């Protein structure tokens, strides 16, 4: 089994509040794993620990065999993180932003150019890439950020609510992109409120609530286990305990 993410007994405490209470899960190469749960369930905290932004209180997290605390810089070379409702530098142009981020990841100029070209095509923003990001719509900014997230050839792309705030067509496009890239071998860890989206894109799902990861499995497995018509019903049954 080719694991790119291994989370074991992860706990994260903020003063007295335990946001994540010892969760364990893993993501395989080329897999799309979705973490779903209500607000305050611990999804974003988990993603931030995996992204090396927060330090775990206990447990261990490994990305591509590297520890997120001890080998933080090496882990950052292997991941890309897209926070929920993230923005980009408004005074930069779209092309300038891609170039800036590419040069943080790659020392080789030829490689930088190749990856920037790839990301530019992925955004489908064409001429608008030479405009300042401040003039972009929410959808355009999100497309740019998704392209940036995969431009760096991550082993694991961590996307927090990737389609949050997008209209139907833009959201559909983003989902298609994620699926296509996963087929090419990029692994995804996605968090979302949108159960339809999760059912459509994810290979496996983990339901988290109050810091506890209740269950993981494919959508079909979860629906069968909870005798639910869809993932939304299965989720409600897990969270309410009914």
């Amino acid at each position, binding site marked *: 089994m080719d694991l790119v993410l291994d989370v074991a007994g992860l706990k994260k405490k903020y003063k007295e509040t335990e946001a994540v209470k010892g969760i364990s899960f893993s993501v395989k190469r080329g897999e799309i794993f979705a973490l779903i749960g209500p607000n305050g369930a611990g999804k974003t905290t988990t993603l931030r620990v995996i992204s090396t932004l*927060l330090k775990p209180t206990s447990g261990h997290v490994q990305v591509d065999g590297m520890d997120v605390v001890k080998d933080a810089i090496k882990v950052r070379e292997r991941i890309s*993180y897209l926070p929920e409702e*993230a923005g980009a530098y408004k*005074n930069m142009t779209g092309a300038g932003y891609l170039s*800036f981020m590419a040069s943080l*990841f790659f020392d080789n100029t030829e490689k930088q150019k190749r990856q920037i070209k790839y990301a530019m095509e992925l955004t489908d923003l064409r001429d608008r890439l030479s405009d300042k990001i401040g003039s972009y719509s929410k959808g355009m900014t999100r497309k740019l950020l998704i392209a940036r997230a995969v431009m760096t050839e991550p082993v694991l792309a961590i996307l927090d609510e990737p389609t949050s705030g997008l209209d139907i067509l833009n959201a559909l496009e983003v989902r298609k992109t994620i699926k296509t890239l996963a087929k090419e071998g990029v692994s995804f860890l996605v968090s979302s409120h949108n159960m339809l989206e999760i059912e459509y894109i994810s290979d496996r799902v983990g339901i988290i609530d109050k810091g506890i990861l209740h269950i993981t499995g494919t959508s079909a497995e979860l629906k069968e286990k909870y005798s639910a018509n869809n993932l939304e019903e299965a989720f409600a049954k897990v969270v309410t305990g009914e």
Partner: protein
Amino acid sequence: MRKFSLLLKKELRELVTWQSVLPLLIGVLIMFFIGNTIGGIAKEEQANYGKMAVLNEDDSAYTKKLIEDLGREYQIKPLDKTLDDAQALSQAEKEGLNSFIRIPAGFGANIYEKGLEQEIKTVTRLKNFSITGGGNSGATAGAANAIREAVTTQMLQSATGKDAAFLKAPVVSKEKIFINQKSADVDSGSVINAVMSQSLFLPIVMFIVITFASQMIAAAIANEKSDKTLETLLSAPVSRTSVLVAKMSGAGIVALVYAGVYMLSFYFYMNGVTGGMMATAAADSAATTQALQTLGLQLQAGDYLVIGAQLFISILIALSIALIIGATAKDIKAAQAGVAPIVFLILIPYMLTMFTDIEKLPFIVKALIYILPFTHSFTTMNNLFLGNSLGVALGAVYQAVFLVIMIGLAVRLFNSDKIFTLKLEFRKKRQAYTNGQTGGLSAINRRRGDRL
């Protein structure tokens, strides 16, 4: 190093925008414009200063002689003696003057022959109430004084037969100033004025730049945090400390450029304002300059280097405090509210050094003032003038230690979870307008479910 220079460039690009540069350029232009306008008015007033209008109703030889003597100092414009005050003012105004002196008929004979007190009248039209609103009324009043002085001198001389100048001022005072062991024969007022004119710009520029730079970096970091670009950046393969140092350096460079531009605009302003008056002051200032040299009160290149270095340290201290506040603030508004008190930390030593001698304050107050790191930048110039090298060195060391501590705190904050988890308000919290809204909606749904 390559990544640091990328981060630094990015910071500069974010900080130097039309929105930030335009107010600066407008400010410089306004200073230049105001300076030149005031200077132009001052020059015009000065050109008129030597002129005066006289309406002489007295034909006596005494008065003619007085006006003749006055003509050596002033360019006299005689007015038609048949005119009333309003008409005479109109005639003076045609000469570009807004006031005149009226000498009444019988003035000379009444004083010199009958010994009767006489009155000369100055008539002025005020058109506005600004500093320069008096126009040449000052010159006219000066001329009226000169007439009174001349009459007094003549009367004293004829009454006593002695030198009237001696009789009016038999005792002459002279001042000698000591600065440490050096001394010079010069009056203290001139020395204080000369030293103040050398050190006038710096505290003002420092105050403006530190206030501006603190707001700039606090807003920048708070913006980056709320836009979540900071999360994106810190999850990239760059060290957090290099991100922090790039931010500080970017803001420091911008602040230094702003300081330079402000210094230049103040120079334009002062040059414009004082340009017209410099010529008259030149004769006096030559003696004062000599005295300043003797007293060692002129700053050398090395002194300016020390002042510049301490200004930069002060800017960096303010930036590190503002960075910590911005990084822990909930949003931009909270960051700006949090940074606002820094202004007072600068304002207090600025005002105190301008109006009082800190050394004479009670010990507790003095200690509190010296704890403020910015105080030492304000006292440096005074210490340099007084040759207090120990004071300069201690101030610089204290500032450097303070800066290291603040940067250490900022590095610690940047390398901890708190950079993402702290969301301080720095202002009064508003009353939550609903409580448990979700609970309320759930309750409604549950009730509906019950009914169904």
